[in-house]
């Protein structure tokens, strides 16, 4: 037995993140850790990697009891980890970034050759001389993997590795991982993408609310069975309803939108043209960091665009600020909930007001009508099934799914003609996700033009009537959802299809 966790418990104020969790991993095994957001997966791997210390419990490494006080100790034991969010210096080269991550000077000798050897050995194409900011997310992930492999780990922890990859890149990653496992390295694979867990992993541990609720061989279960173990409930697919006409007058039009990025390593938007009619949902797929946040900022009006590049219900809106765009009937839900879509320390009432000042009666003669605002917040809470103590609860006290339902309710109850939403169900539990999907479909069927930007291809296929792909700041021409396949969309996500279009 390579690693054995016995009755690990970690408490945070107000919640038990890990409650008597036990886990066993053997050498050469690809072991999946499954669970919804908030199930305690991240805390558990942070404990294994020495970032967090458990309050109770034992860790046995190759049969001996160990205390993993820091990531440095974990690395010495032979534990490597690839985080979901990379820690790379954009302005440095691949080799420099790897050198910075190595603890002792001896390991830096002949580093370039080692990088080339390891990357060739495991099929991780990587040029040590390239500067990181020129690299795709997939390539950046390879840097992190190579950095781990140089320390010759016995256990490699991968946290949601495919959430930033195209389907083709993911397939390549699986080859690498299988090869590593065949050489005896154990892999702890955290994911909520059940299809890939079934294909890749030999064993799975399923967590819910901080506890281990099941163990299985994923290949012997269906995706539906795995999902139901995760959420402890039966899964219902949202009803698509009848697709809208989609050929009515466009409610949102982008015409040759070009916009240089506001940040040094951001993505410039290049020549984006698309129009969305009332009654339809346009899905924008893409790998993270390809211009989604820039597009969202341009649509919201946080960053202004040329006057005629954006039209809302026929009115030129490119130079309008967010308030004016809302007055034209647009609504927006950004990717980040706390700190962007909502003020974490403010009450739900105040957060309702944040984006609903144009709703009549909430603000009169410059004074906030607290009673009316509270009523509006209560209305959102009731109609969008927000589980909370009431409109006085602070936004930060809500779970991700409940806050997201609140923020979507805030927009939907203002009956927008155009709704743009970025990552609608990121970090949201399955129950809330199904509710949100139903609300978005309902809004579109009632005549609104809905734009859903998402990295989750499954979500795009569930929701969208037409699908476009954003890659390198360019948007591919949308195709009807019925005519698109995971493969065709995946190729566009890698940027190949778009180059031909440009």
């Amino acid at each position, binding site marked *: 037995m390579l690693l054995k966790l016995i009755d690990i418990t970690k408490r945070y104020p107000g919640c038990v993140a890990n409650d008597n969790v036990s886990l066993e991993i053997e050498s050469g095994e690809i072991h999946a850790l499954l669970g919804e957001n908030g199930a305690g997966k991240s805390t558990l791997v942070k404990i294994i990697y020495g970032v967090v210390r458990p309050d109770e419990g034992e860790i046995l490494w190759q049969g001996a009891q160990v205390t993993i006080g820091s990531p440095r100790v974990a690395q010495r034991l032979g534990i490597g980890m690839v985080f979901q969010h990379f820690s790379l210096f954009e302005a440095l080269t691949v080799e420099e970034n790897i050198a910075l991550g190595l603890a002792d000077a001896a390991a830096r000798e002949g580093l370039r050759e080692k990088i080339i050897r390891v990357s060739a050995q495991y099929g991780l194409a990587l040029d040590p001389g390239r500067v990181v900011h020129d690299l795709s997310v997939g390539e950046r992930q390879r840097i992190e993997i190579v950095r781990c492999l140089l320390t010759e780990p016995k256990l490699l922890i991968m946290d949601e590795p495919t959430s930033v990859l195209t389907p083709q890149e993911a397939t390549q990653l699986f080859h690498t991982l299988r090869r590593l496992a065949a050489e005896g390295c154990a892999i702890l694979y955290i994911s909520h993408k059940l299809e890939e867990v079934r294909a890749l992993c030999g064993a799975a541990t399923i967590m819910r609310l901080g506890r281990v609720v099941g163990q299985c061989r994923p290949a012997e279960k269906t995706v539906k069975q795995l999902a139901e173990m995760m959420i402890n409930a039966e899964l219902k697919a949202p009803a698509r309803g009848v697709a809208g006409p989609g050929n009515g007058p466009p409610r949102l039009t982008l015409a040759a939108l070009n916009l240089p990025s506001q940040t040094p390593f951001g993505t410039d938007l290049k020549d984006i043209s698309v129009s969305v009619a009332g009654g339809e949902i346009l899905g924008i797929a893409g790998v993270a960091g390809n211009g989604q946040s820039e597009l969202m900022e341009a649509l919201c009006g946080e960053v202004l665009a040329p006057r005629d590049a954006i039209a809302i219900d026929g009115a030129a809106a490119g130079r309008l*600020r967010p308030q004016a765009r809302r007055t034209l009937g647009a609504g927006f839900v950004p990717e980040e909930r706390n700190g962007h879509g909502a003020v974490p320390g403010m009450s739900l009432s105040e957060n309702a007001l944040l984006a609903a*000042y144009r709703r009549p009666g909430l603000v009169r003669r410059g004074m906030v009508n607290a009673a009316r605002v509270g009523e509006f917040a209560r209305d959102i809470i009731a109609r969008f099934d927000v589980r909370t103590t009431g409109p006085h609860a602070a936004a930060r006290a809500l779970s991700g799914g409940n806050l997201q339902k609140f923020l979507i309710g805030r927009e939907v109850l203002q009956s927008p003609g155009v709704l743009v939403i970025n990552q609608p169900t990121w970090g949201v539990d399955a129950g809330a996700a199904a509710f949100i999907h139903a609300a978005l479909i309902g809004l579109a069927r009632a005549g609104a033009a809905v734009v859903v930007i998402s990295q989750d291809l499954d979500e795009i296929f569930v929701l969208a009537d037409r699908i476009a792909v954003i890659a390198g700041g360019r948007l591919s021409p949308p195709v009807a959802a019925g005519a698109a396949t995971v493969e065709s969309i995946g190729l566009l996500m890698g940027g190949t299809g778009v180059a031909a279009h440009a």
Partner: protein
Amino acid sequence: MRNPGFFKIQARGGESAFWRVASPFLAVGLTAIFTGLIFALMGRPPAHTVWVFLASPLLAKGGLAALVVKAAPLIMMGVGLSLAYRANVWNIGTEGQFTLGAICGGGVALALPDAGAWVFLLMALCGILGGMAGGGLVALLRVKFNANEILTSLMLSYVFQYLLIYLVTGPWRDPQGFGFPQTALFSDAAGAPKLGASGNVHLGVLLAPLLAVALWIGLEKSYLGFQFRVLGQSPRAARFAGFSEASLVWIAMLISGGLAGLAGLFEVAGPVGQLTTNISPGYGFAAIIVAFLGRLNPLGAVAAGLLLALSFLGGDAAQIQLGLPRAVTGIFQGILLFTLLACDVLLAHRIVWRWRLA
């Protein structure tokens, strides 16, 4: 798995309502202890010295009147700063805006020595406009050139201080003043209206708490105040909602500057009665402590202003009665700010003692 040490600091996962109120009181208590320690190290009896510093000014004849007169400018400025700081606009230069208000309002009094009682209204208006000009300059530099307002507002304070020195030693110097750096005394009509027959209590003493209430309502109940609070807590959310950061910075600087200017005008038209090179014993900087001690709540600033006013009176008493250096006022105020910042750790954290962990 244990750390060495007797306690550890643990996140509460939220903000404690109890410590939000209790932290300033704990800070005041600790400050009394630490200043006592410093007095002891100076070879003074600590308890008696703290008594002279904090209690004797209140017990003296006319002590309460002196306290509210000192507190008035501190409250006016602390109230304005509470509002600005809640919007994350860090105006550190109220001392300068106070000075500019005194210059502009005092200039009116000097230019119109024979005017009727209406002249005070004109002076107050010019005082406010002077303070707003000082604050507006900072807003302009921040909005147009993205210059950090902490630096510009602080550095401009010295510019305005030297402007005052230039005026009272040069063009505005009193010809009958035996060469002292001061202007002529203002006329009676140009004095701040007195409340009651006796002493120094002027209109500003009444105005300061009224302004505090007005700004509290503005901050907590108005849509503009809501925008300030959103900008302060979450600038990205403010941008998402479409609030204009530039206008909010302008408004915050104009309000806090204008109130500082009004405070400066009341000081020279009231207790001082003329312009001199030292019209402020550091009110503008003390007002920063007032704002924080008052929890950036305009109503809290009233209580905090009274305490800081006491520290000025206590410093005077300690000088006169015990022969302590004038610096004790600054030491007291400094320790108060530091202990408050330290106590505020308790808002979001709790201390867990080791024997309870075991």
